């Protein structure tokens, strides 16, 4: 701080009066900066950092939270078949949903990019609607579309001669349904990010490629994908975290059922910790979301640092 204060007046060939005034401001600077960031620091440390570590502490307590039991909660979880099912389901849910969101987002972004500029706004506006509706409310519409006896999808499929599908009743179909709703909700986000990225690719690159006789796939592989690499990586990582930690859609659509076949970490932690009253066990379950978070954090930090170097 002081070094800036000393250097600044030297670079400004300003009159003495304003220079001393500047020095006063420089002296204030650290105080002001501290006061400006203080609320943020308090919020982040009290409401995010502390609870995150507190969760680790809670995970080492017994159900009544009066005794330290080390890793017993975890060893208990490892013996439960449901736990391994939840691990498997969380991974299948997050990975397949993110892959399809990314693919659909990519294709739709290209489609929007391909039509004349003046119509793009309208189409983009309609395609982003699933992202705008609060997921807890739009999932209710899906729940009604999937209703066991009044499913509107089954009505249409019945007209085509396809038997009633147990959308949320059968384990495999229920898994399919929660993934489908998640894709429906999340794909527009990918679309909007990819579209922004597509718009930032200089058109000259494509013109040169067209002159050289490049095919569509060559242009995609050698121009579009390398230019969009960063955004694809960041968006995918980001979505992987959010999808892995998803709660709303699964909770409303299936509440983890049938017989725990669609539980993911978040919903199972809620079931055990809040509804079941075993806070330490719930905290232990939710902690399994940390590894994916750590991996993502490393990658994102790398990107952020690169960006800082460019600035």
């Amino acid at each position, binding site marked *: 701080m002081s070094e*800036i204060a000393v250097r600044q007046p030297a670079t400004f060939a*300003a009159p003495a009066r304003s220079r001393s*005034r500047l020095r006063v401001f420089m002296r204030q*600077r650290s105080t*002001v*900066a*501290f006061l*400006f960031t203080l*609320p*943020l620091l308090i*919020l*982040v440390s009290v*409401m*995010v950092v502390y609870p*995150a570590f507190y969760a680790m502490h*809670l995970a080492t307590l017994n159900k009544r939270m009066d005794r330290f039991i080390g890793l017993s909660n975890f060893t208990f979880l490892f013996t439960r078949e449901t736990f391994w099912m939840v691990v498997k389901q969380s991974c299948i849910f997050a990975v397949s949903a993110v892959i399809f969101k990314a693919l659909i987002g990519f*294709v739709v972004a*290209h*489609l929007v990019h*391909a*039509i004349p500029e003046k119509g793009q706004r309208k*189409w*983009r*506006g*309609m*395609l982003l*609607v699933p992202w*705008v*509706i*609060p997921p*807890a*409310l*739009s999932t*209710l519409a899906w729940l*009604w*579309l999937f209703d066991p006896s009044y499913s509107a999808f089954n009505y*249409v499929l019945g007209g085509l001669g396809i038997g009633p599908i147990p959308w949320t009743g059968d384990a495999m179909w229920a898994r399919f349904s929660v993934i489908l709703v998640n894709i429906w909700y999340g794909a*527009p986000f990918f679309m*909007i990010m990819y579209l*922004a990225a597509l718009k*930032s690719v200089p058109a000259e690159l494509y013109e040169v490629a067209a002159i050289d006789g490049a095919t*569509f*796939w060559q242009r995609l592989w050698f121009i579009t994908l390398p230019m969009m690499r960063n955004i694809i990586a*960041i968006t995918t990582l*980001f979505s992987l*975290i959010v999808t892995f*930690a998803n*709660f*709303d859609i699964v*909770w*409303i659509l299936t509440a983890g059922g049938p017989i725990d076949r669609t539980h993911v970490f*978040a919903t199972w*932690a*809620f079931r055990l910790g*809040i509804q079941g009253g075993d*806070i330490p066990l719930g905290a232990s379950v*939710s902690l399994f979301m940390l590894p994916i*978070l750590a991996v993502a954090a490393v990658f994102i930090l790398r990107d*952020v640092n690169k960006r800082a170097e460019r*600035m």
Partner: protein
Amino acid sequence: MATAAALPAPPAIDTSSSHMAGQDRRWAVRWAYFFLCLFVVFALVPPFYMLLTSLKHSNEISAATNPWWVFNPTLANFAELLSSPLFLTFFKNSAIVSVLVVIITMLISVPAAFALSRMKFWGSSVLATGVFLTYLVPETLLFIPLFKMFATFRDWTGIELINHWYVLLLVYPTLTVPFCTWIMIGYFASIPKELDEAALIDGASWTQTLLRIFVPVALPGIIAATIFAFTVSWAQFLYPLAFTTSQDQLVLSVGIATTLIKADVFNWGQIMAGALLGAAPPLVIYAFLMDYYIAGLTAGATKG
């Protein structure tokens, strides 16, 4: 376009090559429209069905007629909800919480972003990165320790936070502040340094520089951040589900999902009407401020 370009070009014998390219391009656009229509149908079916169902009487819903048509449209579901004190309480709680959270978020994140982007101090860049990382910590990791923390807080001070709507004012900023700070850092960084240097030399204080120069210049960013904070608060589901249970303390998202779905009497017309009314504020904001909305969405990856 992907599909369109992959189609083999029709063998053209007589046509000139430029004519052929024009035709190809026209077909590519036609195929793009065709597939866009399919995706738009996929995107809009649930909200459309929401609207359809909300216009039906419950006996029309239970009579297994064609679900994709309304034979006797009615606004009774909306009228009933808008005259139900419970639903209006949900709406009021949601509105109060979201507006207050937006204000709290802006009061915290705008000065912090200003300090982090302009007043380089020891650790400022580490802090900026740290803020972004906290944005990645999901609420599903924090709700259990927070629940216990609020219980401990009550034991210490006698102030009951759980099961009061104002507990949400404490927890929602953890979802909104980090990202809004990040957006604002990006917007502030794009303001030329000469502007604040000139202001400081002219004798403006840091606070004046922020309020008189940065806030007006970065207004688009502030609008984008405000929209983000509002829609996130409005849509949040897990925290209110975990921290509030009394009916008069519920916000809209939880209220509709828990009280309107009664054990076995499913009144879907009313549920869908409620969901539609609950989705209306974000949809209206989106319809009128789409560009700001999208700017806020893409800011995380393209700005800063």
